């Protein structure tokens, strides 16, 4: 088990009129190699939760164990936790600061105290993983790049630390459809190649349906649902009650089935739906 949370509570501004319980008795277990989608309404506690996973925030109550290390223990080195759990914030391009792309990506590995050769290797690998041309871009300023490219640099900066768990907080927010697809493809590629655990926070049910194999749904500071993608997305009513939804195509198939067509309604992607409808039409024709 790489991540384990036991009864984690977090309260903002305790003892003031602005007191707010952001996390309420969170219990979670994540196995190595899982690809998890974290969804929830704005203010449901997603961002607070992910910041707990690398020790940026400390729980008011409860314990967090990352790769066998208890974060509340004094012997745990925060640096090693932050190396293990890489966190890419929302709009990560807003944290770029170096003169060159190379230096910016090297910031994390250098903080880990690695040798120059190792840093160099990691920068190359990270740039390749996110689809940035090393020779062409390494000496350029990150501020000259387009939005999507800047975001890649920022993601590479975290990947270069070789985390065991990669957390991405809405990595596609504010990108155009092409930029979105590219980034998501690269995340998929990183997952396949690097064999790491990924937690993807997103508002797009389509993105989640396409990529992850398990979903956590946060609602009012609690984990409302936790299960395999297909299972969670079969609970349309519950999700809609929480102000969330299911992928459009899943909704469509449900409605299609409701009209008396004998199809499966737990499809997640357009490809699956296409297959299912074609099969159905063929079987109808044969009958």
């Amino acid at each position, binding site marked *: 088990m790489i991540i384990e949370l036991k009864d984690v509570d977090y309260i903002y501004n305790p003892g003031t009129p602005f007191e707010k319980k952001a996390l309420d008795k969170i219990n979670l277990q994540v196995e190595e190699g899982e690809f998890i989608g974290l969804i929830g309404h704005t203010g449901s506690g997603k961002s607070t939760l992910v910041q707990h996973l690398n020790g940026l925030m400390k729980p008011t109550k409860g314990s967090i164990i990352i790769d066998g290390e208890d974060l509340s223990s004094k012997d745990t080195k925060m640096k090693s936790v932050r190396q293990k759990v890489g966190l890419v*914030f929302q709009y990560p391009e*807003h*944290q770029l600061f170096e003169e060159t792309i190379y230096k910016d990506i090297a*910031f994390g590995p250098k903080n*880990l105290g690695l040798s120059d050769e190792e840093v160099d290797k990691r920068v190359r690998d990270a740039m390749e993983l996110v689809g940035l041309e090393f020779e062409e871009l390494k000496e350029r300023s990150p501020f000259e790049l387009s939005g999507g490219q800047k975001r890649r640099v920022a993601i590479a900066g975290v990947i270069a630390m070789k985390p065991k768990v990669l957390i991405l907080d809405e990595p596609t927010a504010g990108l155009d459809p092409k930029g979105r697809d590219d980034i998501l493809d690269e995340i998929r590629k990183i997952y396949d190649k690097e064999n790491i655990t990924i937690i993807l926070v997103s508002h797009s049910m389509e993105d989640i349906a396409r990529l992850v194999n398990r979903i956590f749904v946060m609602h009012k500071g609690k984990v409302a649902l936790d299960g395999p993608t297909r299972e969670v997305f079969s609970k349309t009513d519950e999700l809609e009650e929480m102000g969330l939804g299911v992928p459009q195509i899943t909704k469509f198939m449900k409605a299609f089935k409701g009209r008396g067509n004998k199809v499966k309604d737990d499809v997640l992607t357009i490809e699956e739906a296409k297959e299912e409808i074609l099969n159905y039409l063929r079987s109808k024709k044969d009958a």
Partner: protein
Amino acid sequence: MLKDITIGQYFPGTSIVHKLDPRVKIIIVALFIASLFFVTNFIPYIFIVAFIGGVISIAKLPVKFIIKGLKPLMFIILITFAINLFMTKGEVLVELGPLVITKEGLRQSVFMALRLVFLITGTSLLTLTTSPIALTDGIERLLSPFSRIGLPSHELAMMMTIALRFIPTLLEETDKIMKAQMARGADFESGNILSRAKNLVPLLVPLFINAFRRADELATAMEARCYRGGDGRTRLNELKFVGRDYAVLTGMTIFFAAIISTRYIW
């Protein structure tokens, strides 16, 4: 750490203090500050404390909140206290090597520290009970007579509104960038002063870039809504003195005049 800064924060409420015309409150605070500097004796401090306590209880402000606002300035208060304590000449009370505490020094240091505490709490009462918009409206109106001699009162007020408006935004942003860099192994808490200053680069560069970007966006947004400065601009809610404003202003003027006069009586 950054969340502890409560200076300039507004604490919403419906009390009479909240409802007073901002101009009255600004004038009272000016009188308050002036009288603090006229006071040379501990006895008038009783009235100052009564005034602060009275406003706090009428406005229903949580005392904890006000104490929290003092915390970031504790350092300055302590330094003032220490300097006054050791540097005032007079009748020696205690001698600790080169450090000498005198009777006058003790009196002076307590007096100065209290003056600072009153200064901070008194002025924060203004911002705690007045929304930033009302505050700048008040300043603009108070300064408007000077626009005849070329003082750009509207522009000054607008600049203040914008500055106040962006304090929380920038604090939030600082917090976010700090966390993002800490997630990449940056260390803002250890090391000597030189390496600490150097470690701030990853924080300051993005912060400035984002601040300029925001300023640019705001300028565009204002222009898109045809903002062109103060000339001929009318407002939705005109400030207007009502009976209670006159009453409070008169009462408070007499009160502070009395406090100021203690300097000449004692």
